[in-house]
């Protein structure tokens, strides 16, 4: 597939602050791409650079292989859904949606057909004459979408579009946005600080910290094989356990207090061995708890220190007999499952094939 948006080594400073600090990204046509990071990481600035509201200090942005240098926002093949929706308060729903059609040479009937079609697309049929002040947050969001999509942009930019909605509506809009994107086939670039949102909606996610892109990967890869401790702890929960390398060969053998000697394949490990220290990363669901009766070589002894019940999942904190480090463990609650109590002695094991390691 073709790259539709290319960000080539782009820098943008605000005074001494390096908001975007040498970012390169390629986004394929029809992809749902997310820029994920904590607030202040430069993701919104990057989106505004693509929209044309900011100018790079250095570097270049191309859309369909055409440089966007000196192209004003109104002439770019992009449209944006703003964080606060930016619905024009003096215009009604229909006038808002039709705002960008003025310069297109269309008859009144053609325009009305387009308006109704795009209102239908976002589920607002029949609200043409509703005043924009009488809209709920979710409806404003849909008007903003309809207003942008009616112009058939090559790229739709979304700046934290769901952050102002309550949880239930947000989840509903997440799946609607995803369906909408598949239906229209337009490239979507979404800015979000919500890792769950990025994972559930995107084809690809770029994780940003301090103006730099740390990792670009599919949601699954990002979760299962984060390339740094920062990415790992930003996306989901992870246990970090310090270890010391014993042998650095085809396989890496290292020692931790809890688990003793372990070996990982090089594919499981990110970074370069600098000082022989390695951090083991274990997602909570990669640890499984057994009762004391269970027998297997790999099982280790531990004590349950804390239990948090979340409905479909229960989180345990386990202290290990060999070390006082606490492991966070999650377990799906299913029918017939044994439940444990605080203070109970248990056995547990980790899925060593799926854990990751980081050299610092």
């Amino acid at each position: 597939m073709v790259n539709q948006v290319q960000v080539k080594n782009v820098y943008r400073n605000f005074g001494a602050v390096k908001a975007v600090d040498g970012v390169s990204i390629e986004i394929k046509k029809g992809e749902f791409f997310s820029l994920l990071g904590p607030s202040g990481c430069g993701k919104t600035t990057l989106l505004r650079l693509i929209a044309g509201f900011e100018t790079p200090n250095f570097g270049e942005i191309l859309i369909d292989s055409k440089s966007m240098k000196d192209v004003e926002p109104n002439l770019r093949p992009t449209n944006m859904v703003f964080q606060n929706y930016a619905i024009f308060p003096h215009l009604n729903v229909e006038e808002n949606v039709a705002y960008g059609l003025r310069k297109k040479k269309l008859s009144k009937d053609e325009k009305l057909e387009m308006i109704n079609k795009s209102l239908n697309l976002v589920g607002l049929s029949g609200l043409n004459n509703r005043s924009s002040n009488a809209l709920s947050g979710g409806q404003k969001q849909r008007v903003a979408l309809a207003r942008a999509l009616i112009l058939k942009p090559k790229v739709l930019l979304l700046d934290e579009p769901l952050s102002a909605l309550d949880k239930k509506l947000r989840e509903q809009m997440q799946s609607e946005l995803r369906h909408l994107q598949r239906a229209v086939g337009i490239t979507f670039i979404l800015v979000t600080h919500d890792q769950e949102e990025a994972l559930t909606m995107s084809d690809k996610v770029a994780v940003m910290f301090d103006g730099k892109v740390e990792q670009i990967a599919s949601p699954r890869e990002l979760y299962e094989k984060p390339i740094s401790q920062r990415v790992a702890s930003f996306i989901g929960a992870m246990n970090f356990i310090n270890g010391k390398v014993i042998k650095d060969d085809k396989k890496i053998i290292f020692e931790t207090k809890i688990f003793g000697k372990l070996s990982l394949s090089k594919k499981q490990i990110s970074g370069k061995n600098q000082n022989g220290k390695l951090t083991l990363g274990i997602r909570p669901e990669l640890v499984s708890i057994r009762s004391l009766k269970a027998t297997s070589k790999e099982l280790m002894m531990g004590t349950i220190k804390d239990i948090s019940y979340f409905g479909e999942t229960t989180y345990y904190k386990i202290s290990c007999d060999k070390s006082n480090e606490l492991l966070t463990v999650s377990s799906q609650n299913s029918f017939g499952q044994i439940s444990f109590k605080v203070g109970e002695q248990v056995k547990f094991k980790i899925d060593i094939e799926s854990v990751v390691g980081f050299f610092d």
Partner: protein
Amino acid sequence: MSRASKYLKIFAYTYLIFLYAPALLLPIFSFNSSQIISFPLTGFTTYWFERLLYQETLHEAFKNSMIVAISSSILATTLGVLASRSSTRYNFTGKQISLTFILAPLVLPEIIVGVSLLTVLIQLGLSLNLWSVVLGHTLLIMPFSILIMNSAFNNLDISLEEASMDLGENQIGTFFRIILPLVFPGIMASLLIGFTLSLDEFIIAFFLTGTETTLPVYIWSLFRFPKELPTTMALGTLLLIVSLILLSLSEYFRRRSALSKDSILN
């Protein structure tokens, strides 16, 4: 606490009485049948108001005042819109200083402004006519206009402008389709305040007017004729009513422009 608020209440009422009681005398004496302005009242009449209809110099002064008030309020509002747009949206060197100078007439004694304008105009060899009054009044109204427009522009969410640009509209289109409609209440408030200020203004008009007098200057000249005093009172009553209506209207528009931000954020 309650005692303090009681004294504050008394203070507030005394203040209001001192401020507005003299103005209430205007309508009272303008309907009084005696030529002499004093209590007790002698009887009710509308004669003084009828007399206003036959004073040709008054009509001339009224026309002049209208020309000056309309021109200067439009001029000051236009300049005010431009100035506060640039001061609220852009940063440039000398912004603070130039704003301070534009706002200076708010605190400068009008007589100083009047005398210095007169000196400058005469030095430049310009003749005094209605347009010199328009210039003086524009100078005087500008601060009010800028303060009103500043709050209107500050309430304007910048993402609305960006959204307009993003939807394919250029700068000029965005100004006319988004910015202007949204600051329109502010513009109305500024026009009405400017009109009222100019209509009532005496000192600058007195210095800068040539042979064509404005209404306040005409009223002042009437004081030389004691028998015209009740007529003047009648005229004053009418001016008071017009001013009150204009000010209420302008306050209505100003509040609407201040409210518009809340409706955007909802």
